[in-house]
């Protein structure tokens, strides 16, 4: 199953959370979210609105940037929907799906992007709150991703609660989680992984009723991802491993 790379598992796994006619957002420092949104535009027939932190609304960028906040992501857009505007949209309950980064996630889908260890004397200072604390509780749905699936990142207890409100979904190299009854439940495991492996590598307990192997990428998903990452640069740089 080499053809379902852990990189593709995350990107396609995230794209599959996007629903028809919804407003979906990707932000700063969010390469996977950017790729997922662009992939969905190319792989799925349904309409949805893709807005991003560069102000783009359904843009047609002439290249796929390293930085998910690169202004090229507004190229071809008919408007600049600026930072104040998309935050306000989210706060008033009209953001359907928000992709938000996380360093640590707990079983309720809360996140820590602030610090490892004590906030005041951090072992590791992390990038910081960003959109999360305001967007996670106000977006209709939020989805996050981790390139490393381990009890260090999928934790029983966060070192600091940067954002609460609860993720709707989580994509990792080996698993897809979706919220059920207020907690992240396992929906899929990577076909090369297993329920047992996901349990062993996840710090929080979770419901796995009905979970199945992740459906393989469709041809269109595969083609869309390949067209976004023509030279495999994103996949190489992301350096995601199954184990």
């Amino acid at each position, binding site marked *: 199953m080499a053809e379902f790379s852990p990189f593709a598992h995350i990107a396609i796994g995230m794209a599959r959370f996007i629903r028809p006619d919804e407003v979906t957002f990707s932000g*700063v*420092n969010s*390469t996977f979210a950017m790729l997922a949104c662009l992939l969905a535009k190319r792989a799925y027939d349904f309409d949805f609105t893709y807005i991003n*932190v*560069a*102000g783009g609304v359904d843009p047609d960028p002439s290249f796929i*940037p*390293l*930085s*998910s*906040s*690169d*202004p*090229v992501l*507004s190229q071809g857009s008919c408007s*600049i929907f*600026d*930072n*104040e505007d998309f*935050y306000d949209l*989210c*706060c*008033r309950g009209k953001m359907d799906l928000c992709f938000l980064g996380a360093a640590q996630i707990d079983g309720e889908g*809360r996140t820590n*992007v*602030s610090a490892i260890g004590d*906030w005041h004397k*951090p*072992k*590791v*200072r*992390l*990038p*910081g*709150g*960003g*959109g*999360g*604390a*305001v*967007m*996670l*509780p*106000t977006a209709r749905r939020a989805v996050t991703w981790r390139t490393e699936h381990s009890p260090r990142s999928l934790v029983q207890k966060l070192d*600091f*609660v*940067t*954002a*609460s*409100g609860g993720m709707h979904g989580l994509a990792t190299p080996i698993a897809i989680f979706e919220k059920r009854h207020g907690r992240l439940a396992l929906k899929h495991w990577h076909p090369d992984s297993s329920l047992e492996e996901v349990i062993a590598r996840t710090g929080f307990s979770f419901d796995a009723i009905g979970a199945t192997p992740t459906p393989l990428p469709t041809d269109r998903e595969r083609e869309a991802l390949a067209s976004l990452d023509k030279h495999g640069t994103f996949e190489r*740089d992301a350096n995601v491993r199954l184990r």
Partner: protein
Amino acid sequence: MSRSKIVSLADLASRIPDGASVALGGSFLHRGPFALVRELIRQGKRNLEILKQSPGYDIDILCRAGVADRARVGIVAMEGNFGMAPWYRKAVEQGRLKLEEHACATLTAGMRAAAFGVPFQPVGGLHGSDLPELNGWKKLPDPYGSNEETWVIPRIRPDFAVIHVAEATASGDARTFGTPNWDHIMTRSAGRVLIVAEKLVEEEVFAQQPELTLVPRLLTEAVAIVPNGAWPGSCWPLYEVDYPTIEAYMDEKNEGFLDKHLAEAPETRHG
């Protein structure tokens, strides 16, 4: 035409005293007033407070040079493949930078309070986050009986806002292309507004499409013209990020790098 507000970059930086709070425009590696940031280092500024929703190279190099000792920020990173801003991280971890951690929208809310002339600003979300307690933010009940509890952020009024734009007039009007990031609210909340522009443009050009102007002259104190001044970041649509320089910035950890970097910056070839 009113009096010219065009000054040198050195003059622009000299207006910012030690200890001032400075909001910096742009986001991460895009359209930041990086020439001005480097000039602050050259002028040996100390104890600056940096305010920005998403700083990166700017706050990192200011930490590297020991210029900044306080920050109010949302998310800090070099982005792309570079991850965290390393000198910023070290400064926080070692207690040399006093951090007030925000969500981007709470920093904006505080700036809105300043811009709107009110002492505090309600903001959506934050429920369940540890940030409010950390920062001593208050929650207010809705006096109109909706049973909603809302966090309010105190007024945030930077002493200065410095933004980098594509074009400016001699009278101080300024405009960008692509996203303005947070520059609108920064220039409305700050006590004084300084502009770095790629290019000086005739007023007639602005007057033909006044709707494009982001900062009207009445808000602007002074303007420095610095072509390529957002280097090594991007300035849409004029130039892209100079990634090799960012790589060198990240990799070369020796003492001499900073001097070399400051010396090769584009503003050393102008004004």
